């Protein structure tokens, strides 16, 4: 595999095919856990773990899976890694696991993961699937990081729990509420579209 295509395969997940901003996949966790940066990061890493390892396993055994029952097979493999991630968080990071609540087990129905298996890992080599999974995970973590930073800084005036805004700042409570998540993501999507159309004009 030439070096350039590795780079392109990785970078497409960050922007061109960014799962959240461009493909609108995995919206539920994106909206639900981004009230605080630490939760966003934990969710992003847990999802990345599941995505990378399921891609590895599925791309390496893709010839053994009969195509009629492939979705069920993918789901069982994904669910196995989700269980591992869930138990790991509960064992070592109990407060985070508590605050993420049902959203860690819900990674199992995150459409990004099943989508990548169906669209990519089931057709490509192990190496390419790994690069693709790494790219998509980075894109997802990036999206969660942007959204949760905006919400935490404006909603509680802190970043990762540290005060960043001066005493004059009155936190915008709405940003912590569900409505803040919807509105912020809507505006971010619009900004992403504007950037994309500007980039297209230049090309």
């Amino acid at each position: 595999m030439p070096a350039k295509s590795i780079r392109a395969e990785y970078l497409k997940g960050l922007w061109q095919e960014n799962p959240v901003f461009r493909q609108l996949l995995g919206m539920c966790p994106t909206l639900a856990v981004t009230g605080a940066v630490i939760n966003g990061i934990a969710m992003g890493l847990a999802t990345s773990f599941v995505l990378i390892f399921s891609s590895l396993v599925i791309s390496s055994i893709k010839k053994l899976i009969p195509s009629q029952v492939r979705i069920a097979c993918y789901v069982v493999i994904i669910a196995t890694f989700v269980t591992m991630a869930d138990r790991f968080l509960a064992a070592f990071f109990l407060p985070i696991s508590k605050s993420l609540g049902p959203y860690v087990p819900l990674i199992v129905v995150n459409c990004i993961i099943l989508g990548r298996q169906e669209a990519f890992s089931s057709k490509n080599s192990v190496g390419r699937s790994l690069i693709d999974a790494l790219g998509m995970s980075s894109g997802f973590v990036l999206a969660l990081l942007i959204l949760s930073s905006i919400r935490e800084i404006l909603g509680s005036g802190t970043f990762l729990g540290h005060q960043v805004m001066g005493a004059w700042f009155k936190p915008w409570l709405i940003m912590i509420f569900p409505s803040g998540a919807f509105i912020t993501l809507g505006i971010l999507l619009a900004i992403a579209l504007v950037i994309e159309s500007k980039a297209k004009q230049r090309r």
Partner: protein
Amino acid sequence: MELLALFISAILVNNFVLYYFLGICPFLGVSKKIDSAFSMGLAVTFVMTITAVFSWLINHLILIPYGLDYLQIVSFILVIASLVQLVEMFIRKISPPLYQALGIYLPLITTNCAIMGLALIAVLNNYSFVETVIFGVGSGLGFTLAIVLMAGIREELDLADVPEPLKGAGIALIVAGIMALAFNGFLGMIK
């Protein structure tokens, strides 16, 4: 009385879409027309009720007695997938009109995180059997309410002059945000 409170709070206060952010994909995808939104809502309510029953039975009759709680995620997702398949075959056999109405929406529900979320949240909150069923029906109705309201707004939105980059998902999310804000008003009703 407590059951009634649980029912109302599942519909209005802890609305699945606007409070738990579950089922966002159909909420944004199938909310362009009121008819199809209503069918989707009915299909979800139906599957949610059945899932609530079966997930509780499996959890309390099989997983917990044998100390297999760590298999919850795997078993719930498999149960949901096979239930949706069964329900689809069953409806096609006994009620063709209903099948026509729900038809294409049923298979989509398998990957709907609201169904899985329902099973998991009911377990997390340690609901009893009756509570789980009421929670399931209420959550389904709450989903239907949200998606039908959304479809109503979006039908009107077609005529509005929306800025180019906000068209589609952008404005839909902002509308959902304002709806969530309105639903916040129900917070005072419970407790």
